[in-house]
C-alpha cells in the first residue's frame, strides 16, 4: 500500500504509505478522491499545479480474473473538469504486484525536458533523463525501451500528441504482447503527462509484493465463483472472444442508434462491411488473431490482432467504439482504413473516439467529404506532423467546431459522446449530460435497460425511468471502476450469490465488513468528489446538458429527439 510521489519540478521521489484517508481505496475512488483533495480546481490543467495520478484497481494483482485495470486521474485539459480514464493491459497488475497503490506525478519539468519514470522490481522508483526518446511515436518508443531496459516491463507512455499537449491526447499502455495499443483515451490526459515532461512510465512486471489479504481463502472462494460465471456467460464466454466488442456494430445499428456522418443518421448503410462478424472473418482469412489476450489475468480474450492482406500486423485491438468513430461517424465503410486509423491513433497517442469525432465534425463542416478515408488518415498524420490544422484535430471535436464556426458538435462538457446516439436511447442522454466525465459511455451504459430484447423495461424513446436508470448505473460503475473489474467481466455478477461475491472479496482483502450499503457509499463517494471538483472548477447545472442538435434534429430512421427535460437532468444527482 505504497504511494510514490514524483515531483517533476524538483526531480525528487518520495515513497510513503498510502495515507489513512485513502486506505481501502483503489482505482477511480483513489484517483478522483486524490485529485479533488489536492488539485486547485481552477488551476491550469497543463500547469504545475495539476497532478497526474495512476492507480490500479483495489482488486488488481489479486486472484480475481479481469482486474488489471488502471485508473488515470487529473484535471482534464479537454473538459476543464476532473477526469478518470480507465485502461487495461498489464500495468495495473504490475503495480499491484509491487505493492503500489498509486503513483502521483506533481510539478512540471522545464519545457523541452523529457523524462522516464522507472519502477524497479523492488518497488523503488527512479527518474531517468529521456531526451533520446523525445517526439517518438509509441510503437518505436516501446521497441527502444525494450532494447534499453528489457521486455519484462509494462510501458505506459505518450506519443507526439501528448508531447504537443493536445486535448485529445491519450496515454497508451502495453498489452500482453508488448504493443502500446491499450489506451487511457478519454479526457486528454496524455497532454497532462506531456506537460509534466514525462514520456513514459516503465513498470517492472517482476513484483512479488502484492498487498496482503486479511482472508486469502475467503477471497479465493468468491473469486472462483465469479470467474466461473464470467466463463459460463454467453456474452463474455463466447461472443466477446469470437468477435470482440465489435459484435455491437450490427445490433446498435439495427436499433437505429449508431451515429452516422456526424450523427445526422442513426443507421450506417455499410455497417455490414465494418461489423464484428465481417472483422472476425477477415482476421481469420488473413491469419490474424481473434480470441486474443490483451490484458493480464484476462479470461475473456475479447482482444484481436488485425492484419493486412499479407498477414502483417496492423493493429490490436480493433474495437466497437473505434469502428464507429473512424467508420460510421465519418461515413467510412472500409475496415482496413479503420484499422490503419486505429493504429495511427495508438502510435501518435490520440483518443480514437475524440479524433474520429473531430474528423467527423470537420467533414460535416465541408472540409472533406464523408467517407473519404484517405483524407481521415491525412488528418491524423497532420497531428503527428504538428501542423496548425493537425493541432486543431488533436484538440478534439469542440476545437474543430470552433475553427469552422460549425455548431453540430456532439460533445458534452467538451468531450465527445460515444457510439450510442442519445436520441435513440434516451438513457444515454442522461449519462452523457450528467457524468462528471463529460460525454462518456462507460460511466453509465444503460443500453440494455432500454431494449426489451435484452431484459430492458424502459421505453427508449421516453424520458420515464431514464434518470433513475442512469443514476443507479453511474453509482454502480463508479464503484466498479474503483475495485477495478473489467466492464465486460461484470457477467461474473451472475454467479450464485451475485454481487455478494464482490462484497465478500472487498471484505476479505480489507478485513473490514463490506456490504450493499458500502458499495453504494463507495460509488457515491466517487461521484460526490468528482462533482465537488467540477463545481469548484466552475461547472453549473447548465453544463449538464446536450448540444442543441440532439434536442432539435430528429434522428433517422426513428426521427426522435432527446426528450429529457433540463429539470430531469438536474434531478439525476440530487446530492
Amino acid at each position, binding site marked *: 500500500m505504497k504511494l510514490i510521489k514524483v515531483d517533476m519540478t524538483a526531480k525528487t521521489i518520495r515513497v510513503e504509505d498510502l495515507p489513512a484517508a485513502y486506505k481501502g481505496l483503489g482505482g477511480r475512488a483513489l484517483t478522483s478522491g486524490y485529485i479533488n483533495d489536492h488539485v486547485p480546481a481552477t488551476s491550469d490543467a497543463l500547469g504545475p499545479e495539476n497532478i497526474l495520478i495512476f492507480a490500479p484497481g483495489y482488486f488488481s494483482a489479486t486472484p480475481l480474473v479481469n482486474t488489471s485495470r488502471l485508473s488515470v486521474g487529473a484535471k482534464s485539459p479537454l473538459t476543464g473538469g476532473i477526469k478518470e480514464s480507465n485502461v487495461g493491459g498489464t500495468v495495473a497488475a504490475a503495480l499491484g504486484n509491487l505493492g503500489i497503490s498509486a503513483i502521483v506525478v506533481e510539478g512540471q519539468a522545464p519545457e523541452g525536458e523529457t523524462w522516464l519514470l522507472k519502477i524497479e522490481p523492488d518497488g523503488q522508483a527512479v527518474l531517468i533523463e529521456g531526451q533520446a526518446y523525445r517526439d517518438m511515436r509509441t510503437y518505436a518508443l516501446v521497441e527502444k525501451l525494450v532494447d534499453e531496459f528489457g521486455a519484462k516491463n509494462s510501458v505506459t507512455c505518450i506519443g507526439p500528441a501528448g508531447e504537443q499537449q493536445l486535448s485529445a491526447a491519450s496515454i497508451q499502455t502495453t498489452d500482453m504482447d508488448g504493443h502500446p495499443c491499450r489506451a487511457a483515451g478519454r479526457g486528454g490526459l496524455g497532454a497532462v503527462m506531456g506537460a509534466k515532461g514525462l514520456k513514459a512510465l516503465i513498470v517492472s512486471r517482476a513484483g512479488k509484493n502484492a498487498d496482503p489479504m486479511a482472508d486469502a481463502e475467503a477471497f479465493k472462494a468468491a473469486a472462483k465463483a465469479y470467474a466461473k460465471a464470467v466463463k459460463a456467460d454467453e456474452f463474455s464466454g463466447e461472443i466477446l472472444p*469470437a468477435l470482440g466488442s465489435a459484435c455491437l456494430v450490427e*445490433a446498435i445499428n439495427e*436499433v437505429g442508434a449508431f451515429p452516422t456522418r456526424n450523427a445526422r443518421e442513426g443507421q450506417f448503410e455499410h455497417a455490414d462491411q465494418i461489423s464484428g462478424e465481417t472483422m472476425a472473418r477477415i482476421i481469420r482469412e488473413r491469419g490474424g488473431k481473434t480470441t486474443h489476450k490483451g490484458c493480464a489475468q484476462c479470461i475473456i480474450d475479447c482482444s484481436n490482432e488485425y492484419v493486412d492482406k499479407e498477414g502483417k500486423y496492423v493493429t490490436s485491438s480493433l474495437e466497437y467504439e473505434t469502428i464507429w468513430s473512424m467508420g460510421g461517424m465519418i461515413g467510412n465503410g472500409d475496415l482496413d482504413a479503420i484499422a490503419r486509423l486505429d493504429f495511427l491513433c495508438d502510435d501518435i497517442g490520440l483518443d480514437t473516439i475524440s479524433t474520429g469525432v473531430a474528423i467527423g465534425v470537420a467533414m460535416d463542416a465541408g472540409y472533406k467529404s464523408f467517407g473519404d478515408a484517405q483524407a481521415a488518415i491525412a488528418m491524423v498524420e497532420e497531428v503527428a506532423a504538428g501542423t496548425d490544422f493537425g493541432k486543431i484535430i488533436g484538440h478534439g471535436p469542440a476545437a474543430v467546431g470552433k475553427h469552422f464556426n460549425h455548431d453540430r458538435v456532439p460533445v458534452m462538457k467538451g468531450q465527445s459522446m460515444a457510439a450510442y446516439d442519445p436520441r435513440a436511447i434516451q438513457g444515454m442522454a442522461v449519462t452523457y449530460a450528467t457524468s462528471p466525465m463529460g460525454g462518456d459511455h462507460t460511466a453509465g451504459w444503460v443500453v440494455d435497460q432500454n431494449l426489451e430484447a435484452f431484459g430492458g423495461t424502459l421505453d427508449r424513446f421516453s424520458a420515464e425511468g431514464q434518470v433513475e436508470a442512469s443514476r443507479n448505473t453511474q453509482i454502480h460503475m463508479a464503484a466498479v471502476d474503483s475495485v477495478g473489474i473489467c466492464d465486460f467481466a461484470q457477467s461474473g455478477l451472475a454467479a450464485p450469490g451475485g454481487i455478494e461475491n464482490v462484497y465478500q472479496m472487498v471484505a476479505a482483502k480489507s478485513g473490514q465488513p463490506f456490504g450493499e450499503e458500502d458499495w453504494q457509499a463507495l460509488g457515491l463517494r466517487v461521484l460526490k468528489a468528482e462533482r465537488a471538483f467540477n463545481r469548484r472548477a466552475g461547472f453549473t447545472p447548465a453544463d449538464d446538458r446536450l448540444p442543441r442538435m440532439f434536442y432539435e434534429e430528429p434522428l433517422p430512421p426513428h426521427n426522435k429527439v432527446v426528450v429529457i427535460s433540463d429539470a430531469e437532468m438536474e434531478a439525476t444527482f440530487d446530492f
Partner: protein
Amino acid sequence: MQVQVKLYGTLGKWVAGYDHRTGLAVNVDEGATVADLMAQLGVPLDKIGMVSLDGRLVGKATALRSGVLVKVFHPIFGG
C-alpha cells in the same frame, strides 16, 4: 413461403454450413412465427436477444411474412 435469415454473433454455429455473407433462405409454413423459424433452424430461443423483420424490432411470437429479412441477434452487454 420463403424468408431470408441473418444470424449474428455466434448464432451461426447452430446451422451447419452457415455463411454470414449470404445468410439463409428458409422455407417456412404460412403463419409461422419467429419462434417457429428458430425451432426449425435449431437455434435455441434462450440464445437470442433481439430479432428484427425488415429493420423493425419484433418479439419472438411475431408472425413472419413472405420475403421478409429476419435478423437474429445475440444478447449484448457493453461499455
